């Protein structure tokens, strides 16, 4: 399968929206998959079919539909576990998005009820993140620091857009309880090497979380190989639906962690006085879970696997190399992030001299139907680091083509004419 040529035209046919006509007769060039990916009909169809023929609540229902729904929901867990090579399906917790997954991890620390030493957090303890994080991997830790009095510190970013690990030993010190870093930056495209960080964290006994929201959709990820303790990602960026995210964590940690949300399904035994909790993953899935969304995410895993994550990665690397060259030709364009297609994904953020990104985005959309994202992409500290309030970002996926990159470049030239 991975030896077949990558048939992007065939893939595009799976995504009905890509052939949609926009108002004014424009065709769509969707370069905003880093924000959210489009959905193949296989995913949409799986959800529709489930809703129309097999829907019921899961786990607790004992009738035919309940059994079919439970099977579909738990099958999705198997698929996700296999997709990221999790050692056990019970290590896959379904959340509502990557943000909830990261908050779940953050709320496990410094909970007065929990007695596991690794999760104890207070004044004098340290949380380490980086300057290239998405707000969803910054704010939960700020809130945790505020609640507990722990100290928040972070890795800087080099001018090339790489993680600056020169101060690694000092930053991750004996007081550090948790390190949380993006596996791939949603602005720079940078893919971070986790081994030095995991290695150092092990030395000092700190746990490591990876925000893999921008990684799992784009390359083969083996959770064990990363060496991390926690990995968060999100359905809607990997051809799946909104309303579902994933936390993977080592079984032993899930067991040690206190419950986060309380409610139906996460319990073992409830009395008015006190309760005991179900084993993970149920322990962290309070209330009715995203059943139909899990079915959709399972279908998305199947879809991506049928094409092959290695093949998708290769396709994106080719697009990235092409795009880096093409953008380098645009006068006044400053790329924020690595200039070479090595250890970076297909996310290209840039500024155009003298033209505000908002205007770039508006003209690209208005005149050419090109959808890019403009702003700080939920990574304001990173933009501050580069002394700019905002960038224009083109983020590519399996369904994008070099023609679309050409269209982007033509569009940028036009933008420069309009605002020249």
């Amino acid at each position, binding site marked *: 399968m991975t030896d077949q040529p990558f048939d992007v035209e065939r893939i595009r046919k799976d995504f009905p929206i890509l052939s949609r006509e926009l108002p004014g007769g424009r065709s769509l060039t969707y370069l905003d998959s880093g924000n959210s990916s489009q959905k193949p009909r296989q995913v949409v169809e799986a959800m529709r079919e489930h809703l129309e023929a097999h829907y019921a609540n899961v*786990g*607790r*229902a*004992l009738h*035919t539909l*309940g*059994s079919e729904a*439970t*099977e579909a929901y*738990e099958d999705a867990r198997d698929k996700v576990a296999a997709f990221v090579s999790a050692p056990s399906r019970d290590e896959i917790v379904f959340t509502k998005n990557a943000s909830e997954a990261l908050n779940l991890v953050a709320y496990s620390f410094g909970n007065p009820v929990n007695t596991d030493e690794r999760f104890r957090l207070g004044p004098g303890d340290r949380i380490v993140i980086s300057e290239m994080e998405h707000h969803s991997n910054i704010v939960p830790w700020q809130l945790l620091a505020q609640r507990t009095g722990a100290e928040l510190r972070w890795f800087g970013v080099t001018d090339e857009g790489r993680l600056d690990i020169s101060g690694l030993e000092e930053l991750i010190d004996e007081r550090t309880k948790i390190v949380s870093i993006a596996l791939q930056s949603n602005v720079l495209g940078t893919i971070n090497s986790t081994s030095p960080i995991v290695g150092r964290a092990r030395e000092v006994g700190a746990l490591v979380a990876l925000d893999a929201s921008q990684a799992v959709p784009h390359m083969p990820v083996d959770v064990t190989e990363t060496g991390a303790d926690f990995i968060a990602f999100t359905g809607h960026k990997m051809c799946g639906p909104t309303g579902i995210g994933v936390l993977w964590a080592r079984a032993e940690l899930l067991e040690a962690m206190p419950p986060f949300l309380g409610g139906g399904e996460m319990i*073992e*035994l409830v009395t008015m006085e006190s309760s005991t909790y179900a084993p993970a993953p149920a322990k962290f899935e309070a209330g009715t879970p995203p059943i139909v969304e899990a079915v959709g995410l399972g279908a998305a895993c199947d879809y991506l696997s049928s094409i092959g994550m290695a093949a998708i990665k290769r396709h994106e690397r080719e697009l990235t190399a092409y795009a880096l060259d093409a953008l380098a030709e645009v006068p006044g364009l400053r790329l924020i992030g690595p200039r070479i297609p090595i250890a970076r994904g297909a996310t290209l953020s840039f500024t155009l001299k003298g033209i505000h990104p908002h205007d770039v985005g508006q003209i690209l959309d208005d005149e050419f139907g090109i959808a890019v994202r403009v702003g700080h992409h939920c990574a304001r500290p990173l933009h501050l680091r580069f002394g700019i309030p905002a960038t224009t970002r083109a983020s590519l996926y399996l369904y994008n083509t070099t023609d679309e990159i050409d269209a982007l470049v033509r569009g940028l030239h036009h933008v420069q004419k309009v605002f020249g």
Partner: protein
Amino acid sequence: MIAESMYQELILEHYKNPQGKGLREPYDVEVHHVNPTCGDEVTLRVRLAGDKVEDVSYEGQGCSISQAAASVLHELAAGSDVRESLDRVDAFTELMQGRGKVEPDEDVLGDAVAFAGVAKFPARVKCALLSWMAFKDAVARSQG
């Protein structure tokens, strides 16, 4: 349907005519297990003789699944080899926790394959396992 109707009948059959029900003497160990979710209870005694399970006697209350499972357990375990009966418990546990994905081996499980359909209902798995887990516990204690 929880299972093919033949198997349902088998479960009902065991429920209505439980094999080896009642607590008997002599015994080595007695255990009491409860399924807190649905209130099912079982009191179970084992009597070992060397490598053999000489008797499994029990008393309990609960749904047909939990009652029939105890009856089937008695049928399979009483008089059999200890090692073999524990292997059977493992096979049954694997079947029950397999979410309907595990193909039951009738040679190993005998009448217990009738419970295969239960595996698709997480809420019911504990009913089927109640007496089997009690048996495993009792054997471990009498050997320990």
